């Protein structure tokens, strides 16, 4: 309709119309920008006030050492019931309960022992898990993530099936959070999701999972051997990391198979695993392996040989000292320096003045590093 009217106008009128429209839009954006900043500030202040209020109440409940503690807890629960019963708008009630959950989660980071148990108890008694579960069953990924995190952080295991189902969710964020949650809830046992996950587990996720496991009881995952055969390469890489972390010596043969995996990253991870998990043949096997792999894998092999190499490696390493790139040569010199006299290494490259010069510099640096902070 507007278009029809506009078409009938002459160009000048059309331009004036659009100019007015543009100026109007600019003014509107200016006003919206300014007033929304004011409004948001106001809203932030209000939320902050509520947070402070809840935080102080929580602190009183959790750390009050007198007999009034239980009364306060009852009162606090009633306060919530009151909030519900007083006919407050659903939105506001929801917001207040969310603030409560946020405060509990925030406080959880600084608590342990009895205090933490009280906090879990409070979460249960106020039925805040219902709010979290509602989020978990929502279709919006952000809410699902929030729900999963809240339930797992508060150690609420009742809905673990729903969380477990999400460990192979099509939405990456949900999947990531569910995997972390299940490990948070069940420790190494939670890693069973590795048997069903079909999506790639990113390096970041692997790092986060390993970090979570570091802070848990030192149980060993039982299925690593099976996961090492996974068709999902990222599961194999993660399993190798797990094998390394938990010193699974019984998996040495399996790790050896991974050295010949088609994926280069798997190969590298398998090599690095051998730094901790090895037997008397590993060194020689690695020396043989070195000759048939790419430069990236070779660098990993040398990294492992830094701690594994014995006199058996010396002849082999001398052989490669002359023919390799500077970066690899540096690693070889570093290994050799731990096995024989510097002068012998220099003698080995006597006939190549350029290489000799670089080897001398490398030796000087390596020896200085040893002295520097000792």
């Amino acid at each position, binding site marked *: 309709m507007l278009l029809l009217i506009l078409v009938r106008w002459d160009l000048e009128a059309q331009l004036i119309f659009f100019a007015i429209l543009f100026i109007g839009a600019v003014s509107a954006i200016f006003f919206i*920008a300014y007033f929304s900043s004011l409004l948001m500030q106001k809203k932030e202040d209000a939320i902050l006030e509520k947070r402070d209020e809840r935080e102080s109440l929580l602190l009183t409940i959790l750390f009050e050492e007198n007999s009034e503690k239980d009364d306060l807890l009852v009162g606090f629960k009633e306060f919530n019931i009151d909030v519900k019963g007083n006919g407050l708008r659903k939105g506001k009630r929801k917001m207040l309960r969310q603030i409560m959950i946020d405060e509990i989660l925030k406080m959880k980071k600084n608590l342990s022992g009895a205090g933490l148990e009280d906090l879990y108890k409070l979460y249960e008694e106020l039925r805040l898990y219902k709010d979290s579960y509602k989020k978990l069953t929502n279709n919006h990924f952000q809410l699902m993530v929030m729900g999963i995190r809240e339930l797992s952080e508060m150690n609420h295991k009742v809905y673990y099936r729903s969380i477990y189902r999400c460990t192979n969710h099509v939405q990456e964020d949900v999947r990531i959070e569910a995997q972390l949650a299940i490990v948070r809830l069940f420790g190494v046992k939670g890693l069973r999701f590795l048997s069903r996950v079909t999506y790639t587990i990113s390096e970041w996720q692997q790092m986060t999972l390993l970090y979570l496991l570091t802070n848990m009881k030192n149980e060993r995952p039982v299925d690593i051997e099976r996961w090492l055969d996974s068709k999902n390469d990222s599961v194999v890489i993660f399993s190798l990391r797990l094998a390394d972390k938990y010193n699974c010596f019984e998996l040495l043969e399996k790790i050896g198979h991974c050295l010949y995996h088609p994926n280069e990253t798997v190969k590298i991870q398998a090599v690095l695993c051998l730094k901790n998990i090895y037997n008397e043949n590993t060194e020689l096997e690695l020396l043989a392996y070195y000759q048939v792999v790419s430069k990236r894998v070779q660098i990993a092999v040398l990294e492992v040989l830094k701690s594994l190499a014995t006199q058996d490696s010396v002849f082999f390493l001398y052989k490669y000292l002359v023919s390799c790139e500077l970066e690899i040569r540096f690693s070889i010199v570093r290994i050799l320096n731990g096995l024989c006299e510097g002068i012998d290494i220099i003698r080995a490259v006597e006939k190549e003045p350029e290489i000799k010069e670089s080897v001398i510099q490398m030796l000087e*640096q390596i020896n200085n590093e040893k002295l520097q902070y000792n």
Partner: protein
Amino acid sequence: MCWELWFFYFFTYGILIYSIMLICIYLLIGIYSVYENINHMRKHEFTDYSMVASSSVVPAISILAPAYNESASIVENVRSLFSIYYNNLELIVINDGSKDDSLQKLIDAYHLVKVPYFVNERIATKPVRGVYKSTNAAYKKLTVVDKYNGGKADALNVGLNIATKKYVTCIDVDCVLEQDALLRMVKPFMSSPDKHVIAAGGVIRVANSCEVRGGKITKVHVPKNMLARIQTVEYIRSFLLGRMAWSKLNGLLIISGAFGMFDKEIAIDAGGYDTKTVGEDMELIVRMRLYMEDAKRPYAVRYISDPLCWTEVPTSYRVLWRQRDRWMRGTVETLWTHKKMFFNRKYGVLGLFSYPYWVFFEFLAPIVELLGWVFLIVYAVLGMVIWKFYFLLLIFIVSFGYLFSASSILIETFTFRQYKEKRDVLKLLLAVLYEPVIFHLYVVAAAIRGILKILLKSETGWGEMTRGGFAKKNESVKSDENQKLQTETEETANHVKEENHEK
């Protein structure tokens, strides 16, 4: 139709069509950027960076910080880099043949001694005079390299040669980083299983007038200086309404030289920084991308929309002029060097969208604007201008500029909310109004000068922009008087430096 009329129509409608295209492209990119920024915020809202910060499993990073005549602030700046929240890093400061006592100050402050060091020169650079390490174990992460002067790119290449870690972060030594900046920056490298992330960049924010304590931004203020304030708007607009879209399209051609992270091996294999250009940051990204494209390896350049790095912007028109002139020269040099990408289907998004965008809307924009002004004057003299239409169109263009800038402030208010004080948003909105009046014309003029320099081959050096540094004002908010003094110091220092430093 006579040729004069052809000429008239060609330029009048040519410029009009160009302007309409420019507006449409800006709008499309802006809208897409906002959408992606909001998505990014939602996705990363739950990432707990503090959890892995202290972890030993985080990937190793080398920070490369080139320094040239930074004596006034070098010690404090390095100290602020030590406060970065990251477990597995080495800090390499490259003294690019400073003529002042920068090196000595570092030696004294951090108990440095010259050590034998093997430099694997995978990229050819100016000779290294010496490598210094601290005798104090508290500073064992620090390596100071002293080299002959060769410019910023050369210094960074030395850093790449010396770095021992998998990822390198190149920063301006006087930047202030957010505590978790490295964690946020390293995440994209580890979160893209299908594509090899070769570089990542973050948002640079303006630090003028902000409170800096112990190497950290403690309170964010809108700059007191109007020029810096306008640049604040410009930075917000550029980062919020531009880069995210290009990142999502995998067409990002630039990572700010002030703070960027790279895969070291790819950066070296691609040849390192080009010492012959003044736009070495953009050039390296383009070359790394070409390297990956030619190798047919799936890759990505990522951008993180969180504010990660704070830097000072010029507070005097003279320094701003040099900076913008240099930026344009860098753009032209990079585009010219890699001209084979222009509408080359082989390079996909890069060749069909990113590169042409930079040619048409970054490089040509000031030229078209200049032509617009020239023809306006000519037509006015010849009495060919219909002033009513002219003013109406002018209202359109200026309003669009206002609309775009004000929208970026609005988006900032709803997303990152860095400026929390009531009057800050108002100040920024006023700066939006002021921008087209002088600032824009000045920046266009500086860009034109840059293009002329390239055409006339009158200047090829870096002509670096040096700041006063945070050190002097590290413990307090900079006063206006200090700012004035700093501006004067900057100007004098720049003058001396440009004479000495240019190659």
